[in-house]
């Protein structure tokens, strides 16, 4: 039991950050997208490992957020952007 907990806590290194944590104008490379009923849709829209993602602007009320993905603009809610794990460039 103790061992199991240790594995969970110390396991593999945390995968950096979420796309929702990017600041305006920051770019990152997508590491992976968490499995969720949305995963599929996000991948289809171009959010998958290896692709570059750039935070463009936040909506006036603080949410959703617009990203540049592969040269087009995609609007995502914060909770959806959290599914996208990235490594800052």
């Amino acid at each position: 039991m103790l061992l199991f907990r240790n594995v969970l806590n110390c396991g593999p290194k945390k995968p950096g950050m979420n796309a929702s944590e990017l600041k305006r104008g920051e770019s990152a490379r997508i590491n992976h997208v968490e499995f969720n009923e949305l995963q599929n849709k996000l991948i289809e829209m171009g959010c998958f490992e290896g692709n570059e993602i750039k935070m463009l602007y936040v909506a006036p009320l603080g949410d959703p957020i617009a990203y540049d993905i592969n040269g087009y603009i995609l609007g995502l809610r914060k909770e959806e952007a959290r599914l996208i794990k990235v490594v800052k460039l």
Partner: protein
Amino acid sequence: MNPKEKHIVLVGNPNSGKTTLFNALTGLNQKISNLPGTTIEKKTGHFQIGDQHVRITDLPGTYSIHPKGEDEMISIDYLLNFQKHEIDVILFVADASNLSRNLLLYTQVADLGFPMVLALNMIDSAEKKGISIDVENLSAALGVIVCPINAREGRGLDKLKNTLVKVNAAHQVTFFESNDISSYEALNRHHTHYHNYLRKHLDNLRKNDQADVIANSRNISEETISRYKKIDKIIEIVQYKNTEKGKNITQRIDKILLHPVYGFLVFYATLFVIFQFIFKVAEYPMNWIEAIFSTLSGQIKALLPEGMLSSLMADGIVPGIGGVIVFLPQIMLLFALLAILEDSGYMTRVSFITDRLMRKFGLNGKSVVPLIGGMACAIPSIMATRNIENKKDRLITILVTPLMSCSARLPVYTLLVSLLVTDKGDSWLDPRGLILLGMYLLGFIAALLFAFIFKLILKQKHKSYFVLELPDYRKPRLRNILLTVKDKAGDFVFNAGKIILIVSIVLWFLASFGPSGKFDAIDRKYQSYRDAGMEEKKQSEKLEASYAGMLGKAIEPAIKPLGYDWKIGIALITSLAAREVFVGTIATIYSVGDADDEKSLSTVLSEQKRPDGSPLYSYATIISLLLFYAFAMQCFSTLAVTYRETRSMKWPLVQMGYMTGFAYLVSLVVYQLMA
């Protein structure tokens, strides 16, 4: 030559310029119809090259062959039933500035085994962004004919048309694992396999089989990623990107339109301009139309011998039709302005900036488009909810969209507001425009209120989400806008006009005839009088004794607490099926009871008195009527669409019940407080 008509189906991502290409290929030679046995709307058009007749079908834009929303399901279902629809060739439209994502769907459709042509659109805007594409290499890599086009300016279309005519079943291409497939039989097996797999997935989606959908979801993600990997290898060879050089105008415009402060200011200003526009600008043609119809009524009376026919034409049909045609300028302007917002790409920004707010009310940023569209007409707007992927969000949007003040309410509002404000003053700000804006706001607030109530009542099965492409800004195309206005105006005139014509005739009959004994008695009573004042009195007594009068009197007890009399009661009954009939009915009722045809309707109404001598259309009654028409469900067509979109009788009944109940309650309270 092949005399048989060739059937080409247009497939592509949303915002790829698919509809612009369709309009450019077919011109005015197109129509909107329903797929047989369903309500699914599709656009069909024709063109001809030499002896070859070509029929084109435009399907709703979709991002993937694995449907997420109702509109994607429609397109995919159509493709999977290719035998029934006799599809000869798929014309795939791809946005060159966003090639990788556009090619995803292309490869999926190619693997279904269709002969295809790839139209590469918007190369110019890609080049402005610093992206150029090697068309020949792309064609070689995919094994498909690629036609570079500019749908907006009509470039490359002749070549595209000629190519389409030549392509046949031998041009079948496949994309996925094509290296492994050598023989024709293996190719067919591959297509059939992919087809069956998609078919099964679609059925499970329909049945809402959660276990299967989730299990499949992993497979789909894998499939998608491996497609993208292969696509990206091709992109590396055929695409040259120099984004340093490219200018991004869209992002610059967005800095203003999505700005925390200016963003909402621009949004409100846009709405404000729309309302001032449809009141101020539309006023001139409306005055002309009104003048034409009242002269027409007078002329008919003068020309035709006095009698039944003259009365039917001058008191029934002409004022009934005129009362509706007069609103055509406003409706056309409204649809044109909304089409401009849609075509330019601004509408998606409105979704983006309002999503946070809408979410609180159980809606979605994507609900804003149907809601704003609801200001024109709830029917196409309810159909436009199909791109809302979440079922609950979509259902709530469908239920509350009819609360938005639609163009059919506009005639009613206009008439009532003109009674409320008789002196419009000289200021540039039209007070009637402001009241009208207030009515629209009221509808919107009611829609939010009920959305919130439904959010609390209805159960949530899936998480709500918002994944929305914000397309590049584009100059709206006049042709696209005119075609939309033509469709909608034609629909209003012919469909609403049909009902209104029938209602006008029936109403004229009901208002002109009654139980014969009573009519004779009135005739005898006034026999000895000859002056005009007595004639008017006789007419109104006759109206009261007529069948229509009896009907109005029958419901009077129920509507009296709202401040309405039996004449308004007649109009309420006739406008049950369609609101705009109110104006035609009122026009018919009062012209039957009025000898003077040259007076405008609002003058006639403001002269109406109650039995005690006070004006019938008091502020309390007018406001009570305005509120009733704002909230009540008085549109059979909307109920029919709700039924078809939800596939259940329950939701139209809920819609009817809560809207009309709320309308009655609000009008009752307001009238009792004001009177």
